[in-house]
C-alpha cells in the first residue's frame, strides 16, 4: 500500500499522514517505520529514504520539498516499511506494513496554491498492466472555473507507457475528443476545450489502461480548488456479484461505443 504525493499544473501537492490506524483492532504494528519515496524513471523504480516515523507520529510532505525528477510524472509514492530498500527496484515492493480493511488505512493527499487546498482520502495499490477504465464524470462546473480530468495510474512495473482516453457524451455517444494518459503518472487533461454543457454527462473510456479518475476544478481567481474521484461502475450496485456486473457494464458500453463509431 502506497500513499501518493501529486503535482499538477501550477498546483503543489501535499501528503498528510499519521502512524495511527483508523481503527484500534486490525493492525497493532508499532515498530518504527522507514519512509521511502518511490518514483519511476521509466526503467526502474527509484527509492530514497525520507526518514523514520514512530507510532503516533504525523508527517506532512509537500511536493516542493522533493526534487523535480521525483515528481516528473506528477506522482511520487510514499511507502512505510520495516525493511531497507535498494536505490533501484525492478518492481514496486509488495509487502504492506500498514493495512486495515474497515476502512482502508488512508492518508490525506491533495493539491494547494497560495490561498486554497483540496484533498481526498488516499491510498493507492498497483493496478494491472492490462486493464481498462470507464467512468462517468459529473464534476464539470461552469463560469469562473477551469476544469480538468486527473487520471492516476500506478503499476508494479516501472514503464511509463502512453495510452489513449476517449471522451464521449454518454447520452448520444457523440465523440468529443481524444487525449493521452500515461502509466505510473498523474495525467492531466484540460476539459473546457471539449465543449461539454452543464447537462452533458461525459463518458471517458480507455480500453487499454486502468486508472483512478478525478475531477479537478480550479477557481479562476485561485480562491478555491475542488478534487474528487468518481466511483468505478461496480458502485452503481450493492451486494451480489459486483465484479460480474462491472464487467457487464463495461462490455455493454464498449459495445455501444463500437456500434456508433
Amino acid at each position: 500500500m502506497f500513499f501518493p504525493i501529486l503535482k499538477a499544473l501550477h498546483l503543489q501537492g501535499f501528503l498528510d499522514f499519521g502512524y495511527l490506524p483508523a481503527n484500534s483492532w486490525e493492525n497493532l504494528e508499532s515498530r518504527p517505520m522507514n519512509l521511502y519515496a518511490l518514483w519511476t524513471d521509466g526503467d526502474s523504480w527509484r527509492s530514497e529514504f525520507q526518514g523514520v516515523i514512530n507510532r503516533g507520529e504525523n508527517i506532512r510532505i509537500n511536493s516542493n520539498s522533493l526534487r523535480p525528477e521525483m515528481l516528473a510524472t506528477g506522482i511520487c509514492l510514499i511507502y512505510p516499511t520495516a525493511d531497507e530498500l535498494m536505490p533501484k527496484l525492478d518492481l514496486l515492493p509488495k509487502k504492506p506494513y500498514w493495512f486495515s480493511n474497515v476502512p482502508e488505512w488512508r492518508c490525506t493527499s491533495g493539491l494547494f496554491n497560495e490561498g486554497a487546498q483540496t484533498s481526498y482520502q488516499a491510498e493507492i495499490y498497483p493496478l494491472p498492466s492490462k486493464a481498462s477504465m470507464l467512468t462517468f464524470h459529473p464534476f464539470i462546473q461552469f463560469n469562473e472555473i477551469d476544469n480538468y480530468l486527473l487520471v492516476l495510474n500506478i503499476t508494479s512495473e516501472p514503464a511509463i507507457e502512453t495510452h489513449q482516453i476517449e471522451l464521449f457524451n454518454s447520452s448520444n455517444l457523440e465523440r468529443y475528443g481524444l487525449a493521452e494518459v500515461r502509466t505510473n503518472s498523474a495525467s492531466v487533461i484540460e476539459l473546457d476545450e471539449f465543449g461539454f454543457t452543464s447537462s452533458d454527462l461525459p463518458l471517458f473510456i480507455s480500453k487499454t489502461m486502468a486508472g483512478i479518475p478525478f475531477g479537478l476544478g480550479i477557481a479562476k481567481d485561485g480562491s478555491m480548488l475542488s478534487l474528487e474521484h468518481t466511483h468505478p461502475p461496480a458502485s452503481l450496485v450493492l451486494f451480489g456479484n459486483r465484479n460480474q456486473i462491472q464487467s457487464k457494464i463495461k462490455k455493454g458500453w464498449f459495445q455501444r461505443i463500437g456500434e456508433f463509431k
Partner: protein
Amino acid sequence: MKKSDLLRKAKYALWIPRKITRNPKTKGSVISDLFPLRSDSQWQTHFELLNVAGLISGDNALTQDKYARFIFFDGDGEKLAEKLISIPSSGRKTVFLNSESDPSISSRASSFAVFHESSRDGLDIGESFLAERGYTGYSLSNSAIRGYVHGNFDSLSYKDGKIKAIGNKGLLTRLYTVQHPLRGPATYEFFLSNPTPRPVSVKVLHGNESKKWSEIERFELKSKGSRIFRVEKEDEGVSFIRIRSKFYLGRPVVFRISGRGLDVFHG
C-alpha cells in the same frame, strides 16, 4: 500468545462476522447513502442527479419520463419531506437543494437520500441492488466554485414506501480515528449520521500531537439521524478526532473551511 493479542483476536471475532451494511433482503429494494444537506443563507448543496439505471444498462438516453425520490430527514432521523425529481434525459441534472428557495424542503432538514426506481427498469443485476452513492457539491455563499464529495457509506433501503436503515453496529464500543490530521487556521465541521436501525451513543474525542484525548462532544444519534460538530483550529499545530461508538464505521464527512476555500471529503 500475549494477553493483548488474545484480547484483540477476541474482539475481532465479535466484530468481523457482521458487515458494515446489511442486505436489504426485499427484492427490488433500492439503496441510498444519507447525504449531508447544508441549506441556509450561508451554505448551498447541489446533488448531481444521474440516470443510474441507464448507466448500468448501457443506454443513458431516456425514452420515457423517470423520477428519483428525494427524501429529507431532520437531525433525529424523522422524515420531513419527499420530492420526485425527474431524471435528466440528457445525462446530468445538477439539483440545487435549498430550503430558503424551495419551501417544500423544510428548514429543519439536515440530510437526504435519493432512491431510484429499480423494478420498472427490468435491470439484469442478479442479486445486487441498485445504489445511489452520489456526488454532492457544497459551497459557501462566498465560494467561487463547489467542492464535491462522493457518498460516505450505504445507509438506507427503500421499497414500496418503506425506508429501512441498513447499517450495522457492533456489540462492543470501538474507536474510529478520522484519517485526516487537523491543521489550522481553519474551521472544521464534521457530519456524522446513524445508518443503523437503533440509536447509537457517540463520544467525540479531540487529541493533540502527544495524543492526549479530551471529550468535546457527547450525543445520541437516533436511527437515520445526523449531527454536525465543529472544531475551530486556530493554530498551525496538528490535532486529531476520534469517534467512540458502536458504529462499525464511525466515519464522518469533513468540511474544512479556510479563507474563501472549502475542502470537503469523507474522513
